[in-house]
């Protein structure tokens, strides 16, 4: 986890935790206050509903009383009633339609005229119900006294719930009952609720929580139940459905068929409940709204915290990153890096520590370089001593031998001198060569654009003139130079020394001095960059083992009896100084191929391409040129 990530995380935590505590606390307080307010309204409404039901009962009683007075004064009705079950053809339709005619002016939704046996003589809410026997309802209403009863009565389209009262009156010697009621439907329940935003539901016995009014209005979840504190009940006596058709199989006894027992048998007391509840929808809405606001505030705080943390962490981490970049540039060759600062904080302290550390490193590196230089000089001195001594030994031996002859056999001296002159020349030549090589260890370069082909031709020509490539030794030094080669940016002397060393090395590798040495050039175009020039020397000599090939460019490494081990080491250094690279391919018995890659001069544009462009243009390993006889 980065320093910046930790800072961001810390910012988030610092912003969100207090906000969450505050939001949740406020939310709980507000919800509790709302619930208390709703509970108060529910309790008040329950009281009002109880009063409403009592008023409705009284109003029903009044209406039925007036209706009974009118009925008693209606001679046609009297005649029809007295006629009993067989009124005449004129009176019967009048009786059958009496209740349905009387209902609208009285404002009743339920009206029946029943005789003492419970037979329905006229029914306004279900005209075709006539002659049905339903003694249970008048009996239940009589038992309820002044209270209204919630009755479930049949209609043609299904059972109807009504708040009912009864009134009895006598015609002649017979007693009749007027059963009247107000429909208890959704509209009635809405009226009870008074649009107060509270829900009034009706639960019949045996229905559990099933409800007439459906789920609380506005409740988005039908199964949502308001908290118990928000529910009140108002109970009323209940008379279940008439005759079997309206009673469910699993209904309680109170809702069973009314004619199952004798008319005056008291059924089990059943109670319906008006349930007043506050819809939890406003609470749910409020809770959701608060959650949304809390979420929005949290998100906003999180964003702000992240921004703030990002700014702070950037201010902290930017100088650290700059220090890291600067420190990353430190190398043994690049110890000139400084860490200047005016800061007084930890970053300033760190910068000063790094600055002091770099200074110490610079001093240490200087001491190291000096030690290295001294070590290298000592090594070279020892080598020079060794080499010179090796070169002087044969000369000293020959001179000792000649001196001995001059003292003891002076006449033999000329002959022997001639015999040993070769040895002397060879020793002197060796020492000359050694001196020349040491002189080349520290060249100074003067780089300029120069033509590698021209230098190759000069070197090969010199090599031929010096006898290294003549026919007497059997070695052939040939050239294969690409036309239109761009100039290279190099020191011509260094380039010449490179080629001389490689050619000498190649000629010396030929078995018995016989074979072929090829000096070649190639132009290489790589990926749209400036062209590069490959300059190479291939031979058909002994080749090298992988171990020898791995060490071929080391100082003083040689496989030749009289080699100095400095030729190829010099080549490597010179090539490096020219900004190029050298590559060797060799295998025992298959010759050796050196390839030097040099950058072209900066001003060199695309010129004529080489006569034979290598197939692998851009490759760092060019193909060996054709081996010509």
């Amino acid at each position, binding site marked *: 986890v980065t320093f910046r990530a930790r800072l961001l995380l810390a910012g988030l935590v610092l912003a969100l935790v207090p906000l969450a505590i505050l939001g949740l606390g406020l939310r709980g307080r507000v919800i509790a206050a709302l619930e208390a307010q709703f509970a108060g309204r529910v309790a008040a409404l329950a009281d009002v509903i109880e009063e409403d039901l009592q008023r409705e009962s009284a109003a029903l009683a009044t209406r039925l009383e007036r209706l009974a007075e009118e009925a008693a004064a209606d001679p046609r009705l009297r005649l029809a009633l007295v006629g009993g079950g067989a009124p005449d*053809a004129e009176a*019967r*339709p009048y009786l*059958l*339609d009496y209740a349905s005619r009387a209902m609208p002016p009285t404002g009743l939704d339920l009206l029946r005229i029943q005789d003492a046996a419970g037979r329905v003589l006229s029914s306004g809410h*279900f*005209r*075709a*119900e*006539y*002659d*049905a*026997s339903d003694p249970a309802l008048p009996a239940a209403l009589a038992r309820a006294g002044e209270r209204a009863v919630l009755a479930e009565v*049949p209609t*043609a*389209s*299904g*059972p109807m719930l009504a708040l009912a009262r009864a009134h009895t009156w006598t015609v002649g010697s017979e007693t009749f009952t007027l059963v009247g009621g107000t429909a208890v439907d959704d509209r009635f329940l809405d009226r009870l609720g008074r649009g107060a935003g509270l829900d009034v539901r009706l639960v019949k016995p045996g229905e559990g929580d099933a409800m007439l009014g459906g789920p609380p209005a506005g409740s988005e979840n039908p199964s949502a139940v308001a908290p118990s504190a928000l529910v009140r009940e108002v109970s009323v006596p209940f008379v279940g*459905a*008439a*005759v*079997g*058709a*309206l009673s469910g199989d699993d209904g309680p006894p109170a809702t069973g068929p009314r*004619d199952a027992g004798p008319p005056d048998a008291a059924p089990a007391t059943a109670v319906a409940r008006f349930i007043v509840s506050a819809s939890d929808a406003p609470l749910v809405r409020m809770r959701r709204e608060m959650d949304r606001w809390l979420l929005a505030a949290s998100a906003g705080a999180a964003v702000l915290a992240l921004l703030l943390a990002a700014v702070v962490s950037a201010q902290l981490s930017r100088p650290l990153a700059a220090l890291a970049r600067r420190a990353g540039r430190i190398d043994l060759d690049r110890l000139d890096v400084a860490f200047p600062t005016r800061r007084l904080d930890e970053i300033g302290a760190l910068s000063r520590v790094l600055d002091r550390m770099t200074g110490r490193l610079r001093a240490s590196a200087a001491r190291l370089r000096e030690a290295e230089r001294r070590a290298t000089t000592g090594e070279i001195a020892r080598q020079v001593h060794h080499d010179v001594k090796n070169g002087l030994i044969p000369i000293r031996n020959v001179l000792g031998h000649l001196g001995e002859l001059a003292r003891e056999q002076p006449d033999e001296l000329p002959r022997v001198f001639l015999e040993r002159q070769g040895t002397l020349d060879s020793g002197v030549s060796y020492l000359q060569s050694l001196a020349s090589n040491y002189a080349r260890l520290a060249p100074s370069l003067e780089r300029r654009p120069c033509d590698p082909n021209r230098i190759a031709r000069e070197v090969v020509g010199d090599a031929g003139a010096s006898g290294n490539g003549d026919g007497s030794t059997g070695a052939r030094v040939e050239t294969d130079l690409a036309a239109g080669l761009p100039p290279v940016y190099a020191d011509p002397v260094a380039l010449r020394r490179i080629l001389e060393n490689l050619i000498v090395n190649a000629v010396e590798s030929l078995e018995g001095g016989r074979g072929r040495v090829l000096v070649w050039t190639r132009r290489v175009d790589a990926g749209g960059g400036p062209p590069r020039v490959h300059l190479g020397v291939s031979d058909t000599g002994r080749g090298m083992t992988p171990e020898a090939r791995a060490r071929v460019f080391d100082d003083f490494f040689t496989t030749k009896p009289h080699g100095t081990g400095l030729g190829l080491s010099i080549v490597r250094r010179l090539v490096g100084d020219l900004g190029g690279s050298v590559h060797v391919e060799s295998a025992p018995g298959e010759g050796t191929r050196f390839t030097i890659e040099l950058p072209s001069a900066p001003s060199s544009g695309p010129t004529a391409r080489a006569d034979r462009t290598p197939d692998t243009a851009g490759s760092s390993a060019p193909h060996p040129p054709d081996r010509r006889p």
Partner: protein
Amino acid sequence: MPGRVEPAHAPVPRSGGERFLFAQLYRTLVGVDCNGRARPELAASWRSEAEGRRWTFTLSPDARDWEGVAVTASDVGSSWIAAQEALAADARAAAPPLRLGALTVIDPRTLRVDLPEPATVEFFARPELAVRTRVRAGAWPVGTGPFRPSDRDRLPPAGALATSVRLEGPVAVEMRAISGDARDALDSGVDVWVTRDPVVIGYARAGAGLSAVPLAWDRRYLLATGVAAAPDPSAAPVILRAPEAALAALARDAVRIEARGAGAAADPAPCSAPERRGEPDRGAGATGGARPAPRIVYPAGDAAARSLAERLVALALDPSRADAGWLLELVPGLAGGVGPVGAAGLAAPAFAAALRAGRDAAYVVGVDVGAGRGPCESLREAIRLAPWLRTPRPFGAVGGSAVLPLVETRSTLVLRRGIGGLSVDGDGVLLLDGMRSVGP
């Protein structure tokens, strides 16, 4: 004027109002009087062959149109063909499709018709077979009746309804569409009123200067029941028979208009339907599994059908009643289901669709009866409305269909005393009298 009148329909009536109006304007070859007897109209004589499949009519020399031109056999043939086409094109037509066979004009006064099915001569009294002679663009088709519209040269555009039509003829007549209480209309001077409303009838009987004359029994109510199954054109529904006392009680107490039990007059032999009387039909109508609460469906605008359906519900709700046992024995589908049986009134299109589908326990269906439409015709009409009735319901078997005739109803003619003679056709259509020869 009962029902809507669209003059462009002339001379083929599609509603009660058109039937009444066109009956005054266009005549048929034969008529049926209120006693059910055929009488000559445009035809002077007729004869039948091939057991009632071939009929030959000779036109009366007195048969003339509004312009005094003699009616020819070609006029009759072209009228009938046009009527066939009009009924076939009008999918909403209440009347069953008209199926005539080959028409042959033997001479200008003789027409022969070959019917696909045997028929009696009353068939040709159908109002759809009224004759017009010439069709003129934008004018009433030239009629053959005793009355003609005063604006006969100008026919209202198709789709326009007539609210008032003046007729010229033996007497001047104005027919008006009246909304509101019929008693107010009678008090405001309307001379003739056809109604089923017992209040209006009672008012006419009690009031001075008005007479109430019962018309022919013209509408029959059936209870179509059973379950939907693949119709079998060769089969016929079982005709159920309720106790006559029960039907009489239905007619007397359940229906508030004038009605009588339909059992006695129903289903003569030609219908060839198996007949049952009060035998239990166990499992009939059951389709297996829990059924929803059964319901009796009726057309919402038909008060008589509603009364019948509600009474049947009241009886089915209380099977212990002495007067209810017959119903559940004949129609056991009314018991059972997950809830109590109920009645449901559906608007005309919904009722037609429900009746055609046949998924409810029972349907109260009202069909017209009258001239050319005997009990068999009413049964065929019921089958046309409910094709699943073709599936017979075998005794004791599950499924099938049955028809239970319930009641027949009729209208009452309320007329002002002293306005002259009126006659009533066999199908209850009022004829403004005085111009028609009555009886052969």
